[in-house]
């Protein structure tokens, strides 16, 4: 505590507090514009200058810390007049400025025209830059405080905004915002104090009084950003970042600008029943656009009865195993829990799965096997404590943008960032080491790292001795064949680089590994993750802050949906169906017996449907007709079903094949808890009422359950969550009330006073003997290798602006304007060889299907490799993909198949 004098008053300053902050705390408001909490102080606007005794000129209060006995004169004539003049100068420079400048100017009695420049420094008639779909830049309102620049560069690490010349905001090389590399995270808009950068929707201009603010969550990825919806007239008009544990106020383009899908004209508002005699068309030709040809409107009672009668008929005619359900990782924990309970009790089997099967099933399989838990060991923001960060097979700048911003922040602070990926992604620019390896050689590369760690004696002997099983002769022998020098040519990474990286990782004070679908979506996905687990266990890089294993979870609630039991072989909290004691316990809780065979997985369910052994389904918020591999097969299988019930908010590709469609609620229309990639449980809160007759998902599940003979009367998500706590020890300490109060609690959380555990495995692993286990892994190639007929490699994935199958984001105005059409990335040299330029049309064919899409150059790709996002219904990449499965995780090989690429037409 420092005592100093503020306007003849002796006051105190907290350690590290600026004069501005201390003055504020003592009731002295000083105007300030370039200062914003969380951004590096710049002191350039000079609106907060004060007089410090003994100093020749005035000093910016935001950049100075009081020292003992300092005499600060903030309210004296000299300082006040300087501050007012500064505000008057800014009014002259930025005649269009509003917001904070206007507010401070009024408070200081600044005269608008006192220093008015004629002509104005920025031509007032010059049109604002409206070239970007989401953001408008109006230079006539810009005061060059550089808050946007710091938000863009220091905070989000997107590096688009610069300060050009002798004071003007530039984008990249000085191009229009719409032509720049802007990724539309909108942090600049949030940072701008004057309205120079605004949302194009104009929402920020609506009178504040008419706007309701609802604290909620982002509905998209697993990062779990907290946000505030701005709501007016039952519509979201804008989104602000909220200071959540995962996002610290940051958002990405989807979270900030992707909110209007809920009011898209295509929203389903009445229950629909397939018209009698209208056959299902597995080619989906034209059916998605106009539902009236295929469906008729129905009342809720009719639709619910129709749904349940259909299932009951199937069960009666074809037995207990003929029904299945796909739940959704987009729904809440409560919805996931009730959904799996409905399938298990109402359908009488365990045929319940969801899209985790398509993303991290292999990761979970390996983690459960090695560590006894499928969840992450450390939160993303532990990068702050990491010396070495490995990102392998993940493109977080696109798929987990806010997480990526923290990784880039850490790298720029000096952490070593090692990017291991066949594609040189955006993150590579911040990497200390880039290992651009040949696709499909993951195990060769990872075994080479293990080889160095084992034979260069880099293992953590104490840790291995105390906590690891499986480090035996067989494990070591297996590694002998994987010396870096032996695999370097195949892997495409110099042996020395492999050695350097192995040493860096093993000898780091703390090292953390992140991975994504690039690791998991292979027929050797489980093997890939086994290698990552071995890396962490052999070096002891787990169980401490800044270490560990973090599979970046995709969907906003894929962690929670898995925890809640949307898995055919697991009941809630990963308790195995095969275990009779577990079944007995749940039967006791739920008051009904459970089937004793584990259920089928996503791809197995569709195979069974194709084979005619599975006849009826309940699909809630999933879109397998877009997300599954080999779509011709998947769509045929769905079309063959006798009875398909789809509960969704849009007529998705899957709903187009339904017998009955139940109009549900979008994320912002319901309350519920969601568990992010960090194992943090957070509350989403309803901001809107569902449109038309659309209903809350929880209500629909409950209504169906009652018609199936289950006597359910939950009525609220809180009631469901309370039941979940009773059967899931991980959530035992998290009450609904606590969630409402704290907003975020990380599990495991065993009792009411347990703060939760962001970092787990500190003492032991949740295995039978408390020790982790490693396994030797042999290299196996992908299921389909390029050959003369299909000579290239196809990799599928996502892009920044669109979420998963695009059902939400393609219907969000800004997002679809930013990325409106399907494309395929190729190396520019390949593009040149095909005689094509940017946007030239390509034809892609595999043994399973073909499509055409526009080409885009990406020098980050290896040669003879095509990358395609799978969100575009008009050119669905999954028509091409290979349904071959990983034997343990049952995850399809989305990340590798053989493809023929040619110029179209």
């Amino acid at each position, binding site marked *: 505590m420092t005592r100093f004098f503020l306007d003849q008053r002796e006051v105190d300053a907290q350690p590290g507090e600026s004069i501005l902050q201390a003055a504020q705390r003592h009731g002295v408001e000083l105007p300030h514009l370039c200062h914003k909490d969380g951004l590096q102080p710049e002191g350039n606007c*000079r609106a907060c200058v004060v007089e410090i005794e003994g100093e020749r000129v005035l000093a910016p209060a935001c950049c100075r810390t009081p020292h003992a006995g300092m005499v600060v004169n903030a309210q004296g004539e000299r300082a006040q007049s300087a501050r007012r003049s*500064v505000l008057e*100068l800014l009014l002259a*420079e930025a005649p269009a400025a509003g917001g904070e400048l206007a507010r401070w100017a009024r408070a200081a009695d600044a005269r608008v025209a006192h220093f008015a*420049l004629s002509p104005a420094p920025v031509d007032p008639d010059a049109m604002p830059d409206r070239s970007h779909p989401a953001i408008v830049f109006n230079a006539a309102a810009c005061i060059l405080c550089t808050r946007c620049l710091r938000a863009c560069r220091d905070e989000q690490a997107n590096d688009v905004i*610069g300060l050009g010349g*002798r004071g003007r905001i530039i984008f990249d*090389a000085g191009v229009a915002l719409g032509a720049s590399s802007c990724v539309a995270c909108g942090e600049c808009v949030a940072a701008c104090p004057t309205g120079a950068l605004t949302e194009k929707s104009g929402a920020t201009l609506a009178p504040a009084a008419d706007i309701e603010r609802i604290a909620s969550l982002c509905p998209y990825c697993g990062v779990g950003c907290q946000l505030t919806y701005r709501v007016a007239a039952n519509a979201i008009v804008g989104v602000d970042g909220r200071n959540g544990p995962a996002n610290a106020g940051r958002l990405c383009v989807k979270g900030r600008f992707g909110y209007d899908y809920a009011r898209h004209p295509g929203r389903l508002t009445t229950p629909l029943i397939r018209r009698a005699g209208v056959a299902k068309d597995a080619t989906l030709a034209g059916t998605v656009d106009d539902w009236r040809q295929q469906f008729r409107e129905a009342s809720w009672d009719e639709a619910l009865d129709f749904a349940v009668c259909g299932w009951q008929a199937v069960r009666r005619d074809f037995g207990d195993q003929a029904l299945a359900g796909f739940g959704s990782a987009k729904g809440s924990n409560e919805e996931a829990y009730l959904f799996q309970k409905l399938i298990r009790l109402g359908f009488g089997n365990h045929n319940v799965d969801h899209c985790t099967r398509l993303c991290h099933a292999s990761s979970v399989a390996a983690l459960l096997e090695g560590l006894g838990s499928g969840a992450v060991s450390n939160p993303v923001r532990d990068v702050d404590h990491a010396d070495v960060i490995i990102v392998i097979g993940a493109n977080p700048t696109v798929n987990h943008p806010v997480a990526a911003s923290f990784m880039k922040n850490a790298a720029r602070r000096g952490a070593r960032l090692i990017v291991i990926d066949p594609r040189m992604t955006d993150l590579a620019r911040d990497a200390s080491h880039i290992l651009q390896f040949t696709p499909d050689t993951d195990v060769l590369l990872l075994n080479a790292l293990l080889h160095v760690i084992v034979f260069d004696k880099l293992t953590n002997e104490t840790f291995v001795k105390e906590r690891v099983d499986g480090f035996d002769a067989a494990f070591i022998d297996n590694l002998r064949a994987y010396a870096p020098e032996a695999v370097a040519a195949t892997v495409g990474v110099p042996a020395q680089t492999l050695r350097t990286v192995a040493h860096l990782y093993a000898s780091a004070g703390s090292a953390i590994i992140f991975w994504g679908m690039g690791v998991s979506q292979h027929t050797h996905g489980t093997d890939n993750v086994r290698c990552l687990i071995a890396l962490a266990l052999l070096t002891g890089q787990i169980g401490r802050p800044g270490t560990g294993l973090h599979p970046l979870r995709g969907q906003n609630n894929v962690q929670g949906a898995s925890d809640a039991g949307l898995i055919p072989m697991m009941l809630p909290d990963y308790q195995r169906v095969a275990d009779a004691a577990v079944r007995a316990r749940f039967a006791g809780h739920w008051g009904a017996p459970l089937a004793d065979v584990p259920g089928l997985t996503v791809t197995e369910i569709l195979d069974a449907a194709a084979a005619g052994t599975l006849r009826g389904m309940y699909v809630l918020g999933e879109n397998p007709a877009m997300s599954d591999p080999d779509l011709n097969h998947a769509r045929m299988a769905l079309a063959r079903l006798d009875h398909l019930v789809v509960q969704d908010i849009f007529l998705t590709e899957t709903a187009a094949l339904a017998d009955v469609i139940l109009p549900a609620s979008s994320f912002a229309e319901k309350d519920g808890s969601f568990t992010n990639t960090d194992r943090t449980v957070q509350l989403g809160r309803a901001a809107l009422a569902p449109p038309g007759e659309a209903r809350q998902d929880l209500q629909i599940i409950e209504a169906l359950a009652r018609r199936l003979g289950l006597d359910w009367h939950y009525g609220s998500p809180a009631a469901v969550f309370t039941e979940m706590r009773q059967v899931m020890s991980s959530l035992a300490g998290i009450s609904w009330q606590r969630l409402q109060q704290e907003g975020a609690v990380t599990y495991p959380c065993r009792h009411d006073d347990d703060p939760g555990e962001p970092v787990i495995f500190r003492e032991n692993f949740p295995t039978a003997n408390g020790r982790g286990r490693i396994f030797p892994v042999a290299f196996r190639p992908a299921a389909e290798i390029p050959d003369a007929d299909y000579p290239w490699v196809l990799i599928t994935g996502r892009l920044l602006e669109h979420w998963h199958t695009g059902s939400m984001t393609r219907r969000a105005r800004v997002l679809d304007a930013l990325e409106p059409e399907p494309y395929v990335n190729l190396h520019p040299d390949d593009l040149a060889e095909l005689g094509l330029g940017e946007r030239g049309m390509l034809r892609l064919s595999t043994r399973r299907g073909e499509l055409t899409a526009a080409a885009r150059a990406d020098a980050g790709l290896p040669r003879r490799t095509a990358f395609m996002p799978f969100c575009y219904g008009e050119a669905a990449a999954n028509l091409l993909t290979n349904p071959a499965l990983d034997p343990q995780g049952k995850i399809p090989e989305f990340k590798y198949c053989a493809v023929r690429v040619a110029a179209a037409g």
Partner: protein
Amino acid sequence: MTPDAATRARLHALLEKSPTEALPRDQLIEFLHRIQDACAHLPTSLLTALAAEMKLPLAEVVEVASFYHHFDLVPGADAAPPPTTLRVCTSLACAMHGAEELAERLAGQFGPEVRVQRVPCVGRCAGAPVAVSGQKPLERASPASILAVLASGQTTDPAPPARRLADYRAAGGYDLYKACLRGERSRSEVIDSLDHASLRGLGGAGFPTGRKWRLVAAQPAPRHLAINIDEGEPGTFKDRHYLEREPHAFLEGALIAAWAVGLENIWIYLRDEYAACRRLLTEELAALAAAFPAAPTIELRRGAGAYICGDESAMIESIEGKRGMPRLRPPYIAEVGLFGRPTLAHNMETLHWVPEILRRGPEWFAGQGRHGRQGLRSFSVSGRVARPGVHLAPAGITLNELIAEYCGGMAHGHTLYGYFPGGASGGILPASLADLPLDFDTLQAHGCFIGSAAIVVFSQHDSARRLAQNAMEFFAHESCGQCTPCRVGTRVSAALMQAPVWDAERLDALARVMHDASICGLGQAAPNPTRSVLRHFPQEVE
């Protein structure tokens, strides 16, 4: 936006770097010079490639490139500027000598091969008016002499005929440095001598040199030395004067400072306009490094057209390869300077006197001076005097004495009306105050300071308000744009000063906020000429 292979190859050829060689961040400005020199502008394609190779955001490369006036950024190759740039200086002395008319007459003379730019002071005020064709300066320029130079194809000057290393050493140069290294002098004795000599920072701030050395020496190692030869204050050309004649004096001074203060590395920041001196220094630094292989490395950095880089913290930013924006102080650069290390920053001339003071003894230097002042000052005199140029004269000499004794009196037909005692920023004094001792601390009472001792003399044929306007337009052009009072205040002042009758109330309010609230000396001193006119030449603006 990935650069193609051909562009990358071209970039590496221009930078004379192999594709695997590191491109250090702090050399960004050097790299931009390579591109600008080769292409006569900065093509976006090469900047994109440079950003990618340096792993820098394109915006960061462009914000640096666009800060400096000597770099031409163009959106596309079709908008490239003409290959030859003819710069006409329009600052104080040149303006008095018809620079505006010269630029006007030149404007229509050339085809697409040549462009005419009005530029601020190029540091040759004694030869006003001055034009620079490419990198070749032309003093007392006329349309005829400029056309002749353009026709000759000369775009640069050879290195000036300075005393080179061998001759300097033959005359005993560097003996003192060697004596220091041998321990024949102690560090404290050397620093004490600078105190006794009353040597002060001659870049303009006048900070006592010995005290500065002690301050930096007390900071933790590693410590650096940055030598400022950015000489951009209109009217100042003394550093060039000494550089062109005796470059090794300041270099020996620098090595002695490095020894006495314990400095690891030395950077020299030379303004881009001094191209011939750059050639000379490059050669002499190579020779010096060969002669003293164990001495600290000396790196020569080239400015790129930015007056603000005369501010020591802006210079440091520029040496680090960034926009030349002054830093907020505290921390002072003696604590946190170049690359975050404690830094001794000196104007070149300050170091120039160090060997001589130590050889001849502090009393020799301190013994000079008039009217109670101590030491010698290198006055850059320009304007309406018979013999403009650098005149080494006693500190404290009055303007009347200086003109009479050193400058051969006023120019023919001119009567003293007023003078700038310290370049554009030091304010303006009327003829009635020509008997004041000229030195640090003597002019404050009259709203002026001596700064770098750039004396611009004007006569009854000149207008104080026009010169003050010229100065304010210069500051508006050269403001780094960082802080509001300077960025906007200079522009608003320049606009108000166009009125036949000045709005004294507004100009005074502007002067106060600029002086009180600007980050650095540029903004703080920018209102001085305006205030001087209101105070000493009110008849011109009422």
